[in-house]
């Protein structure tokens, strides 16, 4: 009996001390700095941040900062939140422009605030030169080009004439996606690339180019596009000739129009970077660094700047995607930090 009382007493004591210490700890603010809430991509990003905040019990400390395209506003908003939280904050940031990442990093480094960035950063700036810049994460354009091309080629049985639309020539995303496409092309010897044009990421341009290409090569079996806006233009050009659904098309970005096209069987593949995951995981990793669950100084270089896996959407998983990402929101394990790690940026 005494033993049991001692055990119960000890438990109560531990619990009490635990809760007191928990009360003593100031909650951490979660800052998300993105462009705006007006586009579906960043709206999903903010939703992801909210989902993480709820999971972490920091719902009331979750702050979304939108810069509406102004680099200066972004930096000022970040500074203001640092001041408001007395430095007790972590950030997940989509820098407005590459060069902004440096100004933001210098500011947060000074304030000893842990943060993570997505997409934009000057290539020659090393994250490992900073103590509080936990990670810079981006997505693999080459893999997007390669994977969508493979699905497209398989959809026509691995042989036949293919036409392709690049993005704006000279744009880095356009170049990288094209490299991925060319890699896939080499693996399919029976696929013949009859021609390619630069659609400048635009729907109308893609419509005109694909119309002309179909006049030049009426036996085109498939059309690869470097983004979804051009892919939807290609589909309309095919529709004008009664070929929509017969000649498969692929794109990248997962815009709503393209998701519908995949459901209708007019397109076969697109790629999503999963903005929910970006919004939640960015905060989760930064918070883990602050709490010491991730030891920043022990992370290898290739985990400071890395490429994350994106989601390839095809007719195989379109129902799952629509159910989880369009109609509902997916479930994430926010402590599985490296689940989508593919490779270091410099590898």
């Amino acid at each position, binding site marked *: 009996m005494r033993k049991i009382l001692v055990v119960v007493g000890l438990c109560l004591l531990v619990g009490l001390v635990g809760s007191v210490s928990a009360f003593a700890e100031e909650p951490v603010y979660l800052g998300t700095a993105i462009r705006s809430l007006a586009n579906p991509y960043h709206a999903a990003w903010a939703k992801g941040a909210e989902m993480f905040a709820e999971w972490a019990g920091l719902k009331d400390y979750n702050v979304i900062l939108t810069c509406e395209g102004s680099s200066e506003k972004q930096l000022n908003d970040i500074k203001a939140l640092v001041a408001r939280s007395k430095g007790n904050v972590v950030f997940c940031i989509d820098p407005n422009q590459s060069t902004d990442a440096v100004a933001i990093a210098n500011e947060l480094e000074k304030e000893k605030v842990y943060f993570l960035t997505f997409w934009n950063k000057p290539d020659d700036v090393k994250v490992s030169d900073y103590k509080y810049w936990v990670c810079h994460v981006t997505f693999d354009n080459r893999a997007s080009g390669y994977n969508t091309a493979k699905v497209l080629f398989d959809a026509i049985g691995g042989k036949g004439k293919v036409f392709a639309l690049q993005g704006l020539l000279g744009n880095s995303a356009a170049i990288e996606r094209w490299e991925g496409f060319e890699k896939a092309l080499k693996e399919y010897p029976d696929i013949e690339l009859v021609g*390619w044009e630069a659609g400048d990421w635009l729907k109308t341009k893609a419509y005109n180019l694909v119309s002309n290409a179909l006049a030049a090569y*009426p036996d085109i079996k498939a059309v690869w596009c470097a983004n979804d806006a051009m892919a*939807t233009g290609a589909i309309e050009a095919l529709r004008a000739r009664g070929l929509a659904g017969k000649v498969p098309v692929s794109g990248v970005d997962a815009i709503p129009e393209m998701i519908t096209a995949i459901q209708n069987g007019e397109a076969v593949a697109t790629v999503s970077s999963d903005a929910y995951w970006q919004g939640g995981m960015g905060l989760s990793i930064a918070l883990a660094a602050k709490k010491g669950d991730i030891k920043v100084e022990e992370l290898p270089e290739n985990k400071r700047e890395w490429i994350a896996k994106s989601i390839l959407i095809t007719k195989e998983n379109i129902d799952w995607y629509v159910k989880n990402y369009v109609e509902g929101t997916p479930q994430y394990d926010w402590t599985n930090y490296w689940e989508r790690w593919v490779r270091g940026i410099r590898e």
Partner: protein
Amino acid sequence: MSVTRVEVRKRKFGFLGENASLIALVLLSVFLSIVNPRFFTLDNLFNILDLVSPLGITALAMGFVLMAGSIDLSVEGVVGLSGIVASFLVKNFSNQNDFGFFSIFFCLFTGLGFGLLNGFLLYRFKIPSFMATLGVGFITTGVGILVTRGNPIVITDWSFRQIGMGKVGVVPVAFILTMGVFFLAWFLSERTVFGRYVLAIGGDEAIARDLGINVNRVKIGVFGLAGALYGFAGAILTAKLGSGDINAPIGFTFDSIGSCVLGGIAITGGMGNVPKVLIGIFTLTILRNGMILMGISPYVQQGVIGMILIATVALTIDRKKIKIMK
């Protein structure tokens, strides 16, 4: 007005000079037919007819503005915004509207409104057409982004879509509509006093004023007409692409001005007619089509168009008439 300056010019140019653009178009077509037999097929012909609209309508509008001696850089914004107006009014994924073909009127009025604004800024505040229309172009683009939040508005009204993608037999409906607009414009330009006033003002505004022409009223009329045509083009574009999107008409300004220049309309004003715009838009469309048929590298295509444009201006402008090059 027994003999206008235009008629004087016509006499000076002679048959070859007057029809240079048509001859060039015919030669281009013959050349392409020889290089790639696929050029001269019915399939490609109807492809070209499909691509001529709705760009032909904006080129026509630009033709009137250029003939009056001004320029209009609001094309992309006004076409884009009108297209968005159409997409919000027909059946779509974003709201419950279902106005069907009636929404074309709203597009026309949207375009007309901004066109009149262009003309008003020009005449009331004496802002050069270059700046006034550029500003209106930015405003309309901004409004378009604001109301759509940058997303395309997908339409689901298949009967409305027929004006952009339907066919009568094998002829695209959009092409028939475009030709209808060209015929009305031709009538306006050749058979009414308005057409003559436009050329007179473009030729020499001071003389036109001395002759008692109400220059401001004609200019506002020209910009209003151009705006209404952009509105119509926007409706067709939305029907053709299946969505209202502010990015959809990007490139239309260059292509409209380029078509007019290729057709032989002087950007210095006072010279040109409606058939020339038609020749120009066909030339530009066939050039683009031909470069793909010939397999010319996409890296040089835009450069080729630029060179041809400069060469055309060099060959067609009657430089003796122009004392100062601005």
